């Protein structure tokens, strides 16, 4: 479905002829007996195209989902449960980053693209399916007396303009800044929501997962970092932004500002098996799975 590319559209014509069973076998012989070679060629083309396209009728072909590394673990979880319920269906989940996922969906390399950022105007022709909300929590060590911070203050810290806790009325000590690596979806969202085109200072320490950022903040009383709100636990303290804490409720009703949507995108509205899978994600059961994993549902 989402996958039918330019060439795909032109040549999927044989596809309806070959619905149930393995496609090429049905389509080929029907085309006629005159030029065996040509027939075989068409047959092969049809087979290849069907093999690439997400065609609901072809049960053996896996659905491919690629994109945001922030969405990936949740997508894997959903796919695992969906595949358990539909043993004949396979879903391949890959990372690559939001932009790569959108690009893949647009060009037919994946049936569904996963994005943790909003689509920009030139991508608006794609179908977007919001599946969940995720907050980005600003975390500090539990011993840090700070409880509230503004977006502007966070930006000043991450630009490198404010480097000492003294600026917040705390005892003087350098701020240990922790960020994520270039390419990370969480960093992308953080830069988009907080940094307003400014670059994160090169003196910031870099960790390559939400888990290790949390680990370091939990061990260093002078540190500050950001992680997905669903992953905050009692070893670190999430700061309120202008008095609003990153709770599920505040994220859902838009009062918590550092919030992003997780989207699935596809070239055309999903049909067949892909639709079945997205419906499953949006069903109460799918949403419950996401909420158990720490996200906030969209329904």
């Amino acid at each position, binding site marked *: 479905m989402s996958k039918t590319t330019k060439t795909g559209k032109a040549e999927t014509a044989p596809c309806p002829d070959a619905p149930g069973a393995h496609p090429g076998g049905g389509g080929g012989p029907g085309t006629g007996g005159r030029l065996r070679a040509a027939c075989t060629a068409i047959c092969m083309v049809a087979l290849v195209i069907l093999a690439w396209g997400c065609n609901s009728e072809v049960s053996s072909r896996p659905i491919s989902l690629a994109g945001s590394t922030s969405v990936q673990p949740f997508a894997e979880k959903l796919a695992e449960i969906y595949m358990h319920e539909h043993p004949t269906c396979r879903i391949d989940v890959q990372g690559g*980053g939001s932009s790569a996922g959108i690009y893949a969906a647009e060009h037919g390399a994946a049936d569904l693209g996963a994005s943790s950022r909003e689509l920009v105007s030139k991508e608006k022709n794609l179908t977007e399916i919001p599946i969940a909300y995720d907050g980005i929590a600003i975390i500090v060590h539990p011993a840090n007396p700070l409880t509230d911070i503004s977006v502007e203050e966070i930006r000043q810290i991450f630009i490198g303009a404010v480097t000492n806790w003294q600026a917040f009325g705390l005892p003087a000590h350098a701020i240990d800044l922790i960020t994520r*690596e270039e390419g990370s979806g969480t960093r992308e969202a953080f830069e988009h929501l907080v940094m307003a085109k400014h670059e994160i200072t*090169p003196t910031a320490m*870099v960790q*390559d997962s939400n888990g290790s950022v949390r680990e370091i903040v939990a061990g260093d009383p002078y540190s500050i970092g950001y992680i997905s709100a669903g992953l905050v636990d009692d070893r670190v303290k999430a700061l309120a932004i202008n008095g609003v804490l990153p709770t599920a409720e505040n994220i859902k009703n838009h009062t918590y500002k550092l919030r992003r949507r997780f989207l699935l995108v596809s070239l055309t509205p999903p049909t067949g098996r892909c639709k079945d899978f997205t419906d499953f994600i949006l069903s109460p059961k799918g949403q419950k799975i996401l909420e158990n994993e720490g996200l906030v549902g969209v329904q």
Partner: protein
Amino acid sequence: MQREKFIERVLLLLALSSITSLVLITFFIFWEGFPLILHTGLKNFIATAHWAPTKGHFGILAMIISSLLVTLGAMVLGVPLGLSCAIVLAEFSPQPLKLVLKPTLELLAGIPSVVYGFLGVVWLVPLIRNHLGGPGLSLLAAAVILGIMILPTVISISIDALSAVPDIYREGSIALGATLWQTVRRVVLPAASSGIITAIILGMGRAIGETMAVIMVAGNALQIPTSILEPVRTLTSNIALELGYAAGRHREALFATGIVLFIIIMILNLSATLITRRR
């Protein structure tokens, strides 16, 4: 005779296949990374320190400097320790002690680097943070961990070099009235020097190439450090940290980082070979 020839051919083929894979890896790294160096220019790539690959800045100077500093630190800590350990084991310790200590030291080499890194994170990093200041994840932490990691390499190759010095040298020196220490310092060490230098250079290669443990304890910040308590990012960490998400130019830039690393390690190994051959 036929059989002989056949086995010869098979062995040659096997030898060539391992060399071929090496050549292919080299070719691939250059193939993937070279376009980026052409794109940004060699000077911009290795002589600027602004690394923001998703925004089009590809300067790896900070990482080159950090890699060299971390390696230097590891040498400063690891070489005196390793060398004295090797001297004690080869020259001063009785046979039974040697039989216990040498295998134990070689066991150190078998510990996976992630374990060293983990120890660094839970033990060394808080120690540095609480007693010396800074965030703990630092150049110093990386240097200490690497200093320990290169010990087995330095020790075992140095021992081999010392043991290769013929006993006549030692006997001659002692017969002339020198003490044991004078013998070691004036006769054995100079005779074994090329082997010891090889040991140090191979240890250096291990330190500069180590990745996992360094990512865990070095903090990976993109700055040129001004103190040993500041976090740094090495060339290897840069590749491992970012390759997962990199695409397009960013990915090429990481391969280009690999080229720089490759050349540094080549220079080290080549100098090791030349030094051993000269003597």
